[in-house]
């Protein structure tokens, strides 16, 4: 009995600092957000009223800006998950297939990831608004002279380019590690059996790196839903609200537009629920396809 109390006491000593900071800055805000989402709090007054699900109903039924941002984000998520993984895996396979300059290419492709997303977005703003038009003029590649940021038809594309530029390297590193784990003997056996490179990739490599695929899909899916900085730095959500993503819609609602904290909190809860459901589905599906190595 005494030993047990002592054990609990030490558990408390070791865990208390972590638990305290976690509770104050993570747990309370999480629960607080859910609480505010059913109020009409404006962030300033002391008083607020409970409004039940009115905020949620308003967000889904009467807020075209929110729905547009949600739709835009979903489009972005699909495109990013596919392209980021395809490109990262392609680069990883290509680099791994070479005997020389492996380190050089790895270094170069990963480098953009070290630069803060918002700084990347500023750099690309320069490229899109100033470099490409001049390049178009000088090289006669007139298709480069577009309103890459100002025209909503192109700005989605620009946002994707910058996100890929910044993010592909990270996934590439994980895929490279996965590829290095594929036993050489398996590949050799496949070659002896007369498998061509595509068959080798499809039947040997791919099944052996399903764990890396699970991780990268999880990371890209999660990251894409939370996209903020790229859009903030590149288009600011504009022109108008044409490229506004869901995080930016929440930010604007709470901090720069109306200070409708309660309503913005409801939108935050919606974002959380969407991310949770889609992530759980994704983990389920990709895990099922994993083979035990």
């Amino acid at each position, binding site marked *: 009995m005494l030993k047990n109390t002592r054990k609990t006491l030490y558990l408390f000593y070791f865990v208390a600092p972590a638990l305290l900071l976690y509770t104050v800055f993570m747990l309370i805000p999480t629960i607080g957000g859910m609480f505010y989402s059913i109020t009409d709090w404006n962030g300033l007054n002391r008083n607020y009223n409970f409004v039940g699900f009115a905020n949620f109903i308003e967000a889904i039924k009467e807020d075209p800006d929110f729905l547009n941002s949600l739709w835009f984000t979903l489009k972005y998520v699909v495109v990013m998950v596919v392209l980021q993984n395809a490109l990262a895996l392609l680069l990883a396979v290509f680099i791994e297939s070479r005997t020389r300059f492996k380190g050089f290419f790895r270094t170069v492709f990963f480098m953009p990831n070290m*630069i803060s997303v918002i700084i990347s977005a*500023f750099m690309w703003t*320069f490229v899109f608004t*100033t470099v490409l038009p001049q390049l178009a003029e000088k090289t006669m590649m007139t298709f480069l002279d577009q309103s890459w940021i100002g025209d909503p038809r192109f700005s989605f594309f620009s946002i994707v380019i910058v996100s890929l530029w910044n993010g592909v390297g990270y996934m590439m590193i994980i895929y490279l590690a996965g590829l290095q784990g594929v036993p050489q003997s398996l590949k050799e056996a496949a070659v002896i059996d007369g498998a061509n490179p595509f068959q080798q990739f499809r039947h040997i490599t791919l099944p052996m790196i399903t764990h890396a695929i699970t991780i990268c899909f999880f990371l890209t899916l999660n990251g894409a839903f*939370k996209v903020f900085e790229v859009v903030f*730095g590149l288009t600011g959500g504009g022109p108008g609200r044409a490229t506004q993503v869901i995080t930016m819609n929440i930010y604007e609602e709470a901090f720069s537009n109306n200070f409708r904290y309660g309503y913005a909190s409801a939108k935050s809860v919606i974002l959380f629920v969407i*991310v*949770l459901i889609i992530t759980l589905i994704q983990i389920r599906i990709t895990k099922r396809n994993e083979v035990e190595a």
Partner: protein
Amino acid sequence: MSTSRRLSSTIILVILILGALLALFPIYMAVINSFKTQGEMFSNILSLPTQLHFENYQQAFQKIRLLDSIKNSLIVSVIGIGGILLFASMAGYKLSRTSGRLSNFIFTLFVASMLVPFHSIMISLSRVAKNLHMQGSTYGLGLIYIGLGINMAVFLYHGFVKGIPRELEESAHMDGCGEFQTFFKIIFPLLLPITVTVGILDFLWIWNDFLLPLLMLTDVKNYTLILSTNMLFGMYNKEWSLILASLVLTAIPVVIIYAFFQRFIMEGITEGAVKG
């Protein structure tokens, strides 16, 4: 067979080189144009500068208050990372070694929040910070990073501790070491690999983070490097020579760190990803 193999190998090399050029293109453009005057930039953006105009850098250095901004970023990072490493290693270790309902509950509590997007809590988090009178303080911001980053770190430490034999602590206890002594003298040094991993992941996150400092810091004096650059970008719209110089200055610290710690960074990412 051998010619087709050589051909495909050449094609791969060409694709990789083109990709590398594309990856470096914006950085190269930013660097060479940061040394030009606005006029030279608009007459010839692609060529190397005819003359190095360091005054862009001089101006940017002052406008983003480079040294102060770096100091602020360092304060936030050191508090954030230091706190995460210390508190998460302690908690992860004890939670891993203690069985029972309470311990399981606390661990689950940490892990359960790992899927919560930051944007879902930022509104009430800013309220909490306001109520605690922490808004505007770099030290407070550091503490908030501990609170936000500790769940992942506890999870990683918890997993790592499982691989360390219990006999070590038991013999240390026999020799009369107390709980804390055992942890800091025997266990903590053994956690070094995972400490490096967590430290790197959290450094990349905190140093490069934008939205949380944007919400928390109110006074220009307390701005982190990223925030100062963001402010300059907004104020000197289209004055590219100044903006590019400040972007390059902002990128230099991470590029230096990348040059020195590349291997650790890549291993850290892989480790963190595989365990997470």
